[in-house]
C-alpha cells in the first residue's frame, strides 16, 4: 500500500507541486518572519554588546518606572534624572576605577548640506551624544573626536550615505537651535555603521551639555575598571559613594536590559507578522483540503480497486494521509528555503515604509526549522483528514463504476455544522470586542478563523445562485461564456471551497479597508471638531522638536496664539500613561476642549491637572479630587483635578500646564505647536511669517488644517498599504487554489473538452471558457469575502466607537476595485489551466478504447 501511495505521488508531480505551493508560501512566511526577527534581535544584542564593550560600570539615576518604547520618539526613550557633575569626580576617586566619562545624550538632527533635507533613516531616532574619551561607546573610524564646540563626529553610515567627510560643514538642529559644525571625525559602533538605523552626532561634553540643556549635569557616567577588578564588586563600591537617587550597575546588566527591551519590541513585530503568516497557512489549508478532495474523487475507481483486491479501509485512509504527510513535509522543507528569501523581502518592505531592521548574517535557529516543518506538515495532514476519511468510505464495487464518489455528507448536517461554526465564530468575535476578556486579540482571531470556516461550510448553498448571478453577463453572449458559467455552477461544493480560500484573503483585506476608511472618517471629523488653530506645526515623522520654535513664533506680530504642546510618560494609578503639557491661555484659542466640569483655566495653578471623562469615570474621580502622579524626574507629586473634558484627540487622558510639565520632566521638546493668525492678518501673510521662522527648523512641517488632516489620513494609508502587502501572500496562495482546482477539473472533463474541440470549438474559445469559469470563481470568493469583511469592519468600528472611531465608512471605490482585481487575478489563474485545456490532444480526449 505504501509503495502504491508513493507511486501515486510521483505519478502526479505537477499536482503535488501545485498543492505544495500553498504550503510552501505559508511556511515560507512563518520561517521568514522567524528568521527576520531572530536576525534583528541578534543584531541588536551584538550592537548593545559593542556599545558597552569599553565600559564596565554605568552610573545612572534610579528610575521610578520604565517608560517603555515610546512611539516615534526622537530622543532617548528613557527619562532619568540628571546626575550632578561633581559626582563624576567622586566616581573617579573610587578605588579600582581606571577612568570615567560623563555622558549626555539628546536630540540632534543632521541636515544634508547638499539637499537641505533632514537626515533620518525611516522612523529611527536622530541621536546626539557627548564624546566619551575613556569608555569609547563609539569607536573612531577616521579623523579625531570633536576638539571644540564647533566640531562634531558623525556616524559612518550618515557620512557614506550623504557624502560627508572630515572637514565637511553640516548644520545640526538641537533643542537649543540650529548651528553649523565642521566634521572632525567619523565613528562606528563595533561593526555597525550606525546605531541600528539611528543617526549619531557626537559633540564634546561641554557643548553637548549646553545643547541638551544639561549644564552642570550628566545623564550617565561610564566607568572603566582597573585591570583585574571585578565589575560587580566595582559597581558595589561606586554605589556606596553615590548620593541618594543614583545607582551603579554593571555594563553587562545595562546591555542585557536594553537588548531585552528591543527583543520585546521585536516580539510584537514577530507576533504581528506571524498572524499574517497564519492567515496564509489557513488559506493554504483550504487548498490542501480542496485538492485532496478532488483527487480522492478522481481516484475513486483506483481506490475501489485497492478495496476489491483486499485493502482495508484503514489502509486506504492511511495511504491518503501518508500522501499528505509526504506532501506537507516536502513543502515545508522547501518553504523553509523560501523563508530565507522572504525574510529579505519583508526587510525590504519595512525599510521601504521607513522601518529599518538591521541585519547581519541570517539567523536560522533550530527552533525556526522545527516550527516551520511541524506547522506546515501538521496543517497539511489535518486538512487532508476529511478527504482521507471519504477515501476510506469508497466501496469495492466503485472500482467498476464510472462516476465519482457520491457526496455522502448530508445537506442538513452540513448546514447545521456550518451554522454552528459560523455562530460560534461570530460569538467569539463579539465577546472579544465587547466582552473585554483579558486575551481579546486571541479570542477575536480565533473567532474570525471560525467564522471563515463556517462561511466556507455554508458557501456551497449560495455558490450556485451566486455563480449564476456573477456569470449572468456571460450567459448569452458566447458559447464559451455560457459553458464557463455553467462549469462554475455545476459543482457548487467545489466552486465554493475553491473560492473560500480567496474569500478569507479578501475578507481580511475588506475588513482592513473598511476599518481604515472608518478610522479616516472619524479622524477627519474629530480634527474638524477639535482644531481651531490656523496652522499646526509638527515634527517630520512626528518626532518632537525644539521648544525654541514656539518662542521664536511668539515674537512675530503676524501671529496670534502660539500654543506649544508636549507629551511624556508618567505613572498614574499604577499605569504608565501619556501626560500632556499645554499652555492654558492659548490652548483654548487653538483647540476645542469640551469641558464636562471645571475649566482649562484651572491649570494656571501648576499643581492642577485636568483629565478625560473616560479615566474620570473608570477611576471614579471628580473635579476637586486630588490624585498622585509619579514622575521619573521629580518622583511622586500630588495634583488637584481642575476639570474633566470629553475625549480629546490631542490631550489624551491627562493634561497639565507647561509650568507643571517643565518641573517634572527632563526632556523639553514640543510635539505640536498650534498657531493662529493675529486678528486682521491675512492667512497667507501669517503663513509666510511662520515659514520665515520654521526655516531654521528643517525637521518641522507647517500644515494648515486641511494639510494636517491629510497627513493623518496619509499615515493611516501607509499602514493600510503595509497590511495589504502582508495579506497579498494569502491572496496569491488562494489563486494557486483556483489554478489547482481548474487543472483538476479539466483533467476530469478531458472527454468533454475533446468533444467540444471535435465539433469545432477553437482553442481560443476553450481558453475563454476556462477563463470565464476562473473569473466567476474568483469574483465569487471576492463577493463572499467582501460581505464578511464589511460585517467584521462594522463590528470592529462599533466596538471602538467610544475611543473616538465613531463613524462607519465604506470605501465603495476600493471594494469595486477589489472585485475587479479578483476578476483580473482570476484571468491570471486561468492562464495555465486554459493553455492545458486548449492544447488537449483531441484524439486522445475522445478515445475510449
Amino acid at each position, binding site marked *: 500500500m505504501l509503495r502504491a501511495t508513493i507511486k501515486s505521488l510521483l505519478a502526479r508531480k505537477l499536482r503535488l507541486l501545485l498543492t505544495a505551493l500553498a504550503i510552501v508560501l505559508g511556511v515560507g512566511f512563518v520561517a521568514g518572519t522567524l528568521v527576520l526577527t531572530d536576525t534583528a534581535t541578534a543584531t541588536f544584542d551584538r550592537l548593545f554588546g559593542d556599545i558597552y564593550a569599553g565600559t564596565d560600570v554605568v552610573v545612572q539615576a534610579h528610575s521610578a518606572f520604565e517608560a517603555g518604547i515610546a512611539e516615534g520618539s526622537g530622543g532617548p526613550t528613557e527619562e532619568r534624572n540628571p546626575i550632578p557633575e561633581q559626582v563624576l569626580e567622586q566616581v573617579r576617586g573610587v578605588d579600582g576605577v581606571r577612568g570615567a566619562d560623563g555622558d549626555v545624550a539628546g536630540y540632534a538632527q543632521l541636515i544634508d548640506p547638499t539637499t537641505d533635507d533632514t537626515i533620518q533613516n525611516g522612523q529611527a531616532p536622530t541621536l546626539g551624544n557627548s564624546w566619551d574619551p575613556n569608555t569609547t561607546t563609539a569607536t573612531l573610524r577616521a579623523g579625531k573626536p570633536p576638539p571644540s564646540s564647533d566640531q562634531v563626529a558623525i556616524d559612518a553610515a550618515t557620512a557614506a550615505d550623504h557624502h560627508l567627510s572630515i572637514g565637511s560643514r553640516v548644520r545640526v538642529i538641537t533643542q537649543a537651535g540650529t548651528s553649523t559644525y565642521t566634521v572632525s571625525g567619523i565613528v562606528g559602533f563595533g561593526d555597525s555603521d550606525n546605531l541600528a538605523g539611528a543617526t549619531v552626532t557626537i559633540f564634546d561634553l561641554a557643548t553637548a551639555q549646553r545643547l541638551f540643556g544639561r549644564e552642570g549635569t550628566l545623564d550617565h557616567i561610564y566607568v572603566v575598571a582597573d585591570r583585574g577588578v571585578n565589575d560587580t564588586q566595582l559597581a558595589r563600591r561606586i554605589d556606596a559613594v553615590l548620593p541618594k537617587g543614583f545607582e551603579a550597575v554593571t555594563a553587562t546588566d545595562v546591555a542585557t536590559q536594553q537588548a531585552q527591551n528591543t527583543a520585546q519590541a521585536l516580539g510584537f513585530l514577530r507576533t504581528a507578522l506571524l498572524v499574517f503568516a497564519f492567515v496564509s497557512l489557513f488559506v493554504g489549508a483550504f487548498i490542501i483540503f480542496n485538492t485532496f478532495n478532488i483527487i480522492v474523487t478522481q481516484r475513486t475507481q483506483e481506490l475501489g480497486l485497492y478495496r476489491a483486491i483486499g485493502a482495508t479501509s484503514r489502509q486506504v485512509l492511511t495511504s491518503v494521509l501518508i500522501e499528505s504527510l509526504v506532501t506537507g513535509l516536502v513543502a515545508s522543507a522547501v518553504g523553509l528555503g523560501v523563508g530565507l528569501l522572504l525574510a529579505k523581502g519583508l526587510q525590504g518592505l519595512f525599510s521601504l515604509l521607513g522601518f529599518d531592521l538591521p541585519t547581519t548574517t541570517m539567523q536560522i535557529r533550530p527552533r525556526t526549522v522545527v516550527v516551520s516543518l511541524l506547522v506546515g506538515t501538521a496543517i497539511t495532514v489535518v486538512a487532508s483528514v476529511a478527504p482521507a476519511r471519504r477515501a476510506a468510505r469508497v466501496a469495492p464495487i466503485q472500482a467498476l463504476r464510472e462516476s465519482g464518489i457520491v457526496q455522502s455528507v448530508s445537506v442538513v448536517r452540513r448546514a447545521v455544522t456550518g451554522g454552528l461554526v459560523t455562530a460560534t465564530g461570530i460569538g467569539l468575535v463579539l465577546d472579544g470586542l465587547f466582552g473585554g476578556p483579558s486575551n481579546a486579540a486571541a479570542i477575536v482571531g480565533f473567532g474570525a478563523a471560525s467564522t471563515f470556516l463556517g462561511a466556507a461550510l455554508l458557501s456551497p448553498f449560495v455558490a450556485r445562485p451566486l455563480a449564476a448571478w456573477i456569470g449572468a453577463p456571460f450567459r448569452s453572449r*458566447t*458559447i464559451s461564456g*455560457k*459553458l464557463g458559467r*455553467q*462549469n462554475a*455552477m*455545476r459543482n457548487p461544493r467545489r466552486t465554493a471551497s475553491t473560492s473560500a480560500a480567496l474569500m478569507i484573503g479578501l475578507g481580511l483585506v475588506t475588513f482592513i479597508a473598511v476599518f481604515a476608511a472608518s478610522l479616516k472618517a472619524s479622524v477627519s471629523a474629530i480634527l474638524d471638531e477639535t482644531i481651531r488653530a490656523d496652522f499646526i506645526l509638527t515634527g517630520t515623522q512626528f518626532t518632537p522638536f525644539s521648544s525654541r520654535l514656539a518662542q521664536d513664533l511668539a515674537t512675530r506680530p503676524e501671529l496670534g496664539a502660539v500654543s506649544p504642546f508636549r507629551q511624556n510618560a508618567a505613572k498614574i494609578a499604577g499605569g504608565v500613561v501619556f501626560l500632556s503639557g499645554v499652555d492654558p491661555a492659548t490652548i483654548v484659542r487653538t483647540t476645542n476642549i469640551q469641558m464636562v466640569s471645571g475649566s482649562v483655566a484651572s491649570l494656571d495653578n501648576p499643581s492642577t491637572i485636568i483629565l478625560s471623562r473616560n479615566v474620570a469615570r473608570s477611576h471614579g474621580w471628580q473635579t476637586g479630587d486630588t490624585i498622585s502622579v509619579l514622575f521619573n524626574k521629580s518622583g511622586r507629586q500630588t495634583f488637584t483635578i481642575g476639570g474633566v473634558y470629553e475625549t480629546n484627540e490631542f490631550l489624551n487622558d491627562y493634561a497639565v500646564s507647561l509650568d507643571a510639565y517643565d518641573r517634572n520632566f527632563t526632556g523639553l521638546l514640543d510635539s505640536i505647536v498650534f498657531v493662529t493668525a493675529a486678528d486682521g492678518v491675512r492667512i497667507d501673510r501669517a503663513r509666510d511669517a511662520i515659514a520665515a521662522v520654521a526655516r531654521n527648523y528643517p525637521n518641522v512641517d507647517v500644515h494648515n488644517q486641511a494639510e494636517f488632516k491629510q497627513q493623518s489620513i496619509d499615515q493611516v494609508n501607509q499602514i493600510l498599504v503595509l497590511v495589504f502587502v502582508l495579506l497579498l501572500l494569502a491572496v496569491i496562495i488562494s489563486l494557486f487554489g483556483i489554478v489547482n482546482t481548474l487543472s483538476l477539473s479539466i483533467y476530469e472533463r478531458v*472527454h*468533454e473538452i*475533446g*468533444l*467540444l*474541440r*471535435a*465539433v*469545432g*470549438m*477553437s*482553442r481560443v*474559445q476553450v481558453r475563454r471558457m476556462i477563463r470565464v469559469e476562473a473569473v466567476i470563481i474568483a469574483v465569487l470568493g471576492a463577493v463572499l469575502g467582501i460581505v464578511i469583511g464589511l460585517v467584521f469592519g462594522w463590528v470592529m468600528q462599533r466596538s471602538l466607537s467610544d475611543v473616538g472611531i465613531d463613524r462607519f465608512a465604506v470605501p465603495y471605490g476600493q471594494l469595486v476595485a477589489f472585485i475587479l482585481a479578483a476578476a483580473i487575478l482570476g484571468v491570471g489563474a486561468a492562464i495555465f489551466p486554459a493553455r492545458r485545456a486548449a492544447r488537449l490532444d*483531441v*484524439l486522445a480526449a*475522445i478515445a*475510449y478504447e
Partner: protein
Amino acid sequence: MQTEQRTDVAARAVDLTKQYGSGDARVVALDAVSVEFERAAFTAIMGPSGSGKSTLLHCMAGLDAPTSGTVFIGDIDLTSLSEKQLTLLRREKVGFVFQTFNLVPTLTAAENITLPLDIAGERPETAWFDQVVDTVGLRDRLSHRPSELSGGQQQRVAGARALVSRPEIVYADEPTGNLDSRSGAELLGFLRDAVDEHRQTIVMVTHDPTAAGYADRIVFLADGRIVNEMLEPTAQKVLDRMKSLEE
C-alpha cells in the same frame, strides 16, 4: 442533376498512410488507402480490431494528421490546412457522433444540438432545427440535461447535433456500440432517414453487421488496407462476407 449529385464525392482519401512510432516499433495503421465517399450516401467501414478503421475516420475528419497522402472534404485538401482552419472545417463541414462522451453534461438537449452553431456564433434555422428534432423524436426532451436522458436518447441528440449545421459529411464512430439493440435500431433508422430524406452524407465505423446492414455500401478494412467492398448490403450478406474474409 439528380444522377450527377448521386455520383458526386463528399470526401475522399488518396494514398492515405498513417504510421505510428519508428524503427522496430513502427506500426502502419493505414497503408496507402484511397477511398471515396459519395454524397447523400450511407457508407459503413468495417474491419477487425486494429484494422485501422477508426484511424481512417479520424484522418478523414481532420482530427488526426496523416503521415502521407491527401484527404479532401469537397474540394478542400485537409492536409494543407492549419490547426485553426481544421477547427473551422470541423465546425462547418463535419458532423460527429461518437460512441460515448457525446454530449456536454451542463447543456440541455436543445443546447447540445445547436452546439456547433453556438460555437460558430450562428443562429439555428428554425425550420431545419424543428425538422431534425422531429426526425429524432426528441421534441419533449429538449430541456432535459444528458443525465436525464437514456443512452439511446443521448445518441439521438448527438445525431441531431451532427446534422443541425448541415455538414458536408457526418462521421459516426461506433455510434451504437453502447446501446441496446432497440435503441441502436432507432438511431440507425434516424441516420438512414437523414440520408434518404435530407440527402445527408454519413460515414460510419462499426463492427456490428446489423448496423452495417443499414448502409448503402460497406468498405472492409484489414491491416490498414481496403480489402473488399459491398453494395446494398444486408446483415446476412455482411456476416457471410466477414466470415469469408477471416478465412
